[in-house]
Each structure stands twice: as C-alpha cells, then as structure tokens.
C-alpha cells in the first residue's frame, strides 16, 4: 500500500487526475464530502488531503510514502526527503515586492515581511544585506502599505493581488513549481511502486513549449 499526501485545493485535484491516469484511481475521492482519507485496496493506494504546507512533514516523518509539495515549502522547511520529479504544475515564483515608488535605502536595515523567513534570510544573507524579518501568516501585501515593512517576500503567480494593492514585484528569488517527494526510508522498501508512479507521472508532465 502506497500512502500519498495530496495538497488540498486546485493543485491537489490536478495532481490526483495525473495519479488516476497512471492507474492509481480511487473514485470515492471525487465524492463531495468532508472525508480526508480515501483508499483503493485493489490499486494499492491510499490518498489523504492535507494542508499544502504540511505535505512535506507527512512525507518526512513517514506518515505518507510520497506526496506533492511546492518548491517554496521544500526550500523553507528543508525536509530530509527525496525530490523525485518536477511536476511543472502550480508554477509561480518567489519574489521580493514593494510599493511602486520604493527605493532601497541601503543606509537602513531592510524590514522584510514574509511567510517564508528562511528563504528571505538566505536570499538577503547571500547579498550581505542586513534585514529585520517580520513573520506574518497571511495578507502579506498590506505590510508595506501600513509601513509595517519595506518589502515583502512572497509567492507571485500573476501579480494581480500585488497590483491591486499598489505593489509590484521587484526581484525574482526563485521559480516555484510542484514537486513529487518521497520519504527516504519508504523509497527503499517500496522502490518499485514509487518508481512506477514516478515514471508514469513523468510521462504526463507537460513541458513549457
């Protein structure tokens, strides 16, 4: 039995469709209800929906053998897992954004509001910039408007939310997409099944061109 942690939401549904096409179907998952765990004994697979930012934890600790997590989560938490495949889904970028008229005054410590303190710290320490991290859990965009921070480090998909709040992306830190990850120990003992899943997902990955 392979345990798969899927990220709740649109991305997770797309990912499930890919698993289904690979022969790991579990029709009950499409029923509208509040259940979180779905199993198809015949296909040897069990899916569960978890918060996207928790997928890596489930996989790292072996509650799930494999899962699909955003590269942002993998960079932020650095879980000890295998990263088997870039699914080329859920594409966006981690970026620094600020008010349109923002000028980086290097005389002062830069105040950075973010949900991703480790990514922000790593990015600015490579630039040798002194920063103050303000860890927020949501609505990051209002931080510069209320003068809580100078810039924000956040995920930018279309830039529409930024625009509506009078902000714009200034620098791209890293491109983000969804990745297939596997628990290191599970990979040893379920190697064939995990390899099969990986290969048939790989065949379905859409390239950019």
């Amino acid at each position, binding site marked *: 039995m392979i345990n798969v942690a899927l990220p709740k939401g649109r991305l997770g549904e797309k990912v499930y469709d890919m698993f289904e096409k690979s022969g790991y179907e579990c029709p009950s998952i499409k029923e509208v209800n509040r259940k979180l765990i779905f199993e198809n004994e015949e296909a040897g697979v069990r899916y569960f929906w978890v918060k996207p930012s928790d997928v890596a934890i489930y996989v790292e600790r072996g509650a799930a053998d494999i899962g699909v997590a955003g590269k942002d989560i993998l960079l932020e938490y650095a879980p*000890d897992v295998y990263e088997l495949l870039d699914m080329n889904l859920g594409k966006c970028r981690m970026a620094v954004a600020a008010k349109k008229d923002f000028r980086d005054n290097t005389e002062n410590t830069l105040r950075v509001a973010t949900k991703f303190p480790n990514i922000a710290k790593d990015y600015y320490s490579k630039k040798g910039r002194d920063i103050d991290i303000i860890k927020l859990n949501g609505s990051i965009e209002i931080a510069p408007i209320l003068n809580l921070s100078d810039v924000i480090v956040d995920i930018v998909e279309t830039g529409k939310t930024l625009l509506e709040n009078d902000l714009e992306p200034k620098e791209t830190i890293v491109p983000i997409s969804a990745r297939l990850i596997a628990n290191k120990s599970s990979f040893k*003992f379920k190697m064939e099944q995990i390899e099969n899943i990986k290969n048939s997902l790989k065949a379905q990955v859409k390239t950019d061109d």
Partner: protein
Amino acid sequence: MFLSNILKNEEKAVFALRSLYRKYGYTPFKMSKFEEYDLYVRNKDFLVSDSVITFTGMNGKLLALKPDVTLSIVKNTKDLPDTVQKVYYNENVYRVSKNTHEFKEIMQTGLECIGAIGIYDIYEVISLAAKSLGAISENFVLDLSHIGIVSAVLDSIGCSRETGKKILTCIGEKNQSGIEKICAENNISGEDCEKIVSLVGTYGRIEKVIPELRAICDTPELKSSLAEFESICALLISSEFSDKINIDFSIATDMRYYNGVVFQGFVENVPTGVLSGGQYDNLMKKMGRKSGAIGFAVYLDTLERLNLVEKKYDVDCILLYDESTEPADLANAVNKLIADGREVMVQKAVPENIKYKQLLKINGKEVDELENND
C-alpha cells in the same frame, strides 16, 4: 534471560549489537562524559549539528558534553604500522534536534576500525553494519556509495566549488531536474550533465548497478575508485545479506572528511536512517594522522517506535487495602499474585489515569475481585 516484553527495542538492540561486535574482536571503548571544546571547534564541520553544550571545567578549560563519539576515539588512538584498532562504544551524545531546536540526549552505539585498514577491514565493517541492521529488524536495506566516485565525477566536469556543492545537494535529493537546471545555468555541457544525472539515476542491487557504473567511469581517477568499489562489492555480493545491499549515490556526506565507501542503513517502518558510516581517512589526515579509518553509528533513539505494541493496561491488578489490613497479610497476598505471574500495584484508593485489568480488595486474609476489565 531477558524478558522480551520488558526490554525496549533500543535496549534489546544494545545487547544484541554488543555481543555481535565482541564476536569480531572489537573491544569496548568507554570515554568520559566531557571533552575539551577545542576538539570540536577544530572539526566543526564533521559534527551533525554545530551547537555544543559547553561549560568551564575546574581548571578553567572550556569543556563540552560530547556531541560526537568518533572524534574522541580518533584522538585517543595511535598510528601503529600493520595493525588496526577495533573498538565499539555505547554512549549518549548531545545534539540539537531539528524539530524542537533544543538539545536532545541521543543514545548511540557504533564501532570504529582505525589503522592500516585494507579491503578486508572495509568489508568487515560493512558486513557488521548489515548484521547490526539484521539484529534490529528482518526487513532492512543498507545503501552503499563511494565518495571517490562522486567526487571524481564532479572533478571531471570542472565546475566551481559553489556549483559542486549545489549539485551535491541535488544528488542527495535524487533531484534530477535540479541538476539539469544547475548545469544549464553554469554552462556545463549536456554530456557532463548526463553523467551526473545517470549517477543519480543508477541505484539498486550491486549486480545491476556495477555494469552501469562502468559506462560512466571514463577518467583514470574514476576507474581507480570504481576498481576499489568493485572489489568491496565482489565480497559483499557473496555474503548472506547480498539481497539487502543497494548501491545508491544519494548518500550525501561531507567530502572533506569522508573519502571511500560510505553507507546508510534503513529498517522498514522507521522513517529515517538508523545507521550511517563510512571511511574517513580525510578526517584522520586533518587531525594529523597517517592511518586510515572506517566506522559507523547506530542511532538507537530512532527505534523507539519500531513495532510498537500498545499496552492496553498499565498494570495487571490493583490491590486495595484499608486501615484494618494487617501488613503481613497484604505482603502475603502480593507475593501470591506475583507468583501467579501478575503485576500488582498496592493502593489505598484507585489512582487516577491508571488502566488496570483487575481491581482487587484484600479482606482479612482473602482477596476479593471488585472489577475485571479483561
């Protein structure tokens, strides 16, 4: 002699491993709890976590609670020609846990083989690693890699140290798309990129992987590392646990300390590696020593939840008594119940949060049953 239902997994493992290592002539190495902090400062990168608990000793020297055992053992051995010193240990080490960001006491057992080591010694240590895993669980896998091969592949593409480090991280994650991206960004040729990707992509049984490796290993350095690796693999392939050994180059270790074979052990139902080790001649050189060395550690704390059988009850029976009970009668009743093979907790009243199979009350010399939950 040992009651299997009383000993915990990690305690059983300590006994089994101790007797295993003794059979092969390894002698116990008992060290003091503290070590001079200086030793760890000089070899900081060798440590798994770089935080160390320190305090000032009576003579004003800065001491540390051991975060690692290998460095202390290396420090206390001598370079002797043609002999190897074989020691095993069972020690607590103090490291920062990744999850709580606090210091944690970790029970660790392992062995070190230091001196003029040859192919046989390397084989012996790897096979003892496999046997150690076998003593913990029937279902285990020992992954084997060779740092010489990995570093020669990286050298052959001639990338910068910074890029090499990034590629190494991707190798550790089996992250093929990451490697391709780094190569593209750093103008590494498609052919060289393919070489690294195939190194990551080739894993599994020795007999399957070795022929694939021969195709990748095209420089003299690669060929000589592969030749050494093949001679070790040839010994392992005819061993009793050959079907449990895999070659896997994703074992990411620091190349500044390790040089030859490195390995990592997993047992089913434990989500992290339970054993890791390798040949660390580079560390020896860094510490001013001429000898070679190889060893491994078993992380016993990871075994706590392995095959955990939830106990339904804390105790078999609670025996209640009151003011009128004669202590001698109570003692007799307890001894009788224990002789019957039951666990007994004597109380005046039923304590909270204790689950019991049977509630008994002593009445004069007789024991009455008040409740039975079985």
